[in-house]
């Protein structure tokens, strides 16, 4: 447990990875997270780690693939268009069951879009931008401190599930400076990997890291295995936070990331005006906190549910699946880099009450 230091989100993320025992980073620059690379270009040599600027995101993601297959902890960071270019590799890495941490500091899309904060890659992250049946474990911090903690946790989860993990932050998470502490107790020893990692076949039979299953029965079984893994995540890794849910609030907000912080301010302001609004903030986007949200939505005083996002409405589909018709589900959001102010959120809430 160190003392608090003021750090920019991107740099704190880079440092958190190192503290988590990950000393290998491959990436391609893209705003608004190039500072992760710039930080690690300085820092990795200091800790005897590897920093490599790849020729593209396609190459970077396949370097991760190879390196993870060789048994080391490895991660990258990028932003929306760059993540799209990694889609093929992400599908492969999930198929090969390799632990890799991806960080997407989301910018506004689609296309080149803009560089300002957005949450419009929710679908891509949670439903799989790549092809085939696989699931990323997706975590969404709402402060620099939480980003640091989740990055450290991510490496443990990646190893535990042998699955790629994605951390989704909007541009604010990457760009803002906040005080952070590094909780070194979140770091974990990597498990023994020489049974499946390509570290040379001395003393054992050769291992193969692969994703091709020409026999449909084998391919089906492999898919079943991946599905069971996803089910285990659903059972064990749901994370979220309740805010102002103790009393008899009338409206349930669902919001994540920095957008949820704006919502908190709005909730506080409304509280002063005597209006009680509760919020559930998913921290894991996959597994989505279906049950906690369903539970909150079904509390008798709740009249409606409002999903608030920096998008045109993506998470709201999962909120619908959670609420399952028990209450009307509404959406409020902005895209393109606009961030609703607490006043905007307050106004949206008032319209529903």
């Amino acid at each position, binding site marked *: 447990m160190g003392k*608090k230091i*003021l750090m920019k989100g991107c740099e704190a993320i880079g440092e958190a990875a190192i503290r988590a025992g990950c000393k290998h980073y491959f990436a391609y620059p893209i*705003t*608004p997270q190039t500072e992760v690379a710039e930080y690690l270009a300085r820092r990795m040599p200091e800790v005897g780690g590897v920093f490599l600027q790849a020729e593209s995101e396609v190459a970077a993601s396949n370097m991760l693939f190879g390196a993870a297959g060789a048994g080391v902890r490895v991660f990258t960071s990028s932003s929306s268009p760059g993540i799209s270019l990694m889609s093929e590799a992400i599908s492969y890495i999930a198929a090969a069951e390799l632990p890799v941490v991806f960080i997407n500091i989301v910018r506004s899309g689609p296309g080149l879009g803009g*560089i*300002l904060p957005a949450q419009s890659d929710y679908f891509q992250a949670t439903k799989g931008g790549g092809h085939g049946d696989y699931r990323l474990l997706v975590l969404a911090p709402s402060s620099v401190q939480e980003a640091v903690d989740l990055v450290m946790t991510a490496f443990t989860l990646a190893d535990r599930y042998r699955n790629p993990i994605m951390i989704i932050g909007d*541009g*604010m998470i990457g*760009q*803002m*400076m*906040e*005080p952070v502490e590094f909780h070194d107790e979140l770091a974990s020893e990597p498990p023994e990997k020489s049974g499946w990692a390509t570290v040379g076949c001395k003393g054992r039979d050769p291992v193969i890291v692969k994703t091709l299953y020409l026999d449909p029965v084998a391919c089906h079984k492999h898919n079943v295995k991946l599905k069971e893994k996803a089910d285990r995540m659903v059972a064990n890794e749901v994370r979220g936070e309740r805010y102002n849910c103790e009393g008899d609030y009338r409206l349930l907000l669902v919001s994540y990331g*920095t957008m949820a*912080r*704006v919502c*908190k*301010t709005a909730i*506080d302001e409304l509280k002063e005006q005597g209006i009680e609004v509760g919020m559930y903030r998913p921290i894991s986007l996959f597994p989505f906190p279906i049950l906690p949200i369903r539970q909150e939505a079904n509390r008798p005083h709740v009249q409606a549910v409002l999903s608030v996002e920096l998008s045109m409405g993506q998470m709201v589909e999962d909120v619908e699946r959670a609420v399952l018709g028990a209450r009307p589900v509404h959406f409020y959001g902005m895209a393109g880099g606009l*961030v609703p*102010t*607490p*006043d905007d959120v307050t106004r949206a809430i008032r319209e529903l009450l």
Partner: protein
Amino acid sequence: MQDEVQFAGFGGQGIMLIGKLLAHSAMHEGREVCWLPSYGPEMRGGTAYCTVVLADRPIGSPVISNPRYLVVMNRPSLEKFGPMVKTQGAVVINSSLIPISIDRTDIDVLRIPCNDIAVELGDNRVASMVALGALLGYRTLVDLEGIKELVKETFGKKVKVLNINLLALERGFELGRAFRESRQGGQEEQG
């Protein structure tokens, strides 16, 4: 208690730095802080700004559209952000580069010739320090000495640069305090 300050100007005017200094020293004083820049060099030129939130409990929204305090170093920034300042707030205007003022009576307006003072001190680049000093002279968001310590850490052994920066802070601080005192006097007269 929560204070929000927005700093704005051309890229290269030192906007980000003075914001960070404020955030940093508030953190040292044990407050919650959040510094959020307008980011991305993908667009050359134009206006750069950052907001700093200082608070006594966890900070909700890092996005501040209506800051209590505004420090503007160029004209487009004043035009863009001036109207946003909260009632009862204040704006520090770099009058060296901003010929106009702002048509609001619900806020305090400090016109400080930052660049002129900076040039006078021998380094045009310290204009932003003058502005930060003025803000702190006007409202003690953090202790001036804390900021000075940070400036010392930042400019380390470049003694000449360091001294000019410290001087700039002090000159600004004096002007800010003078304004506050005159204003209080004025208010008393009115009251």
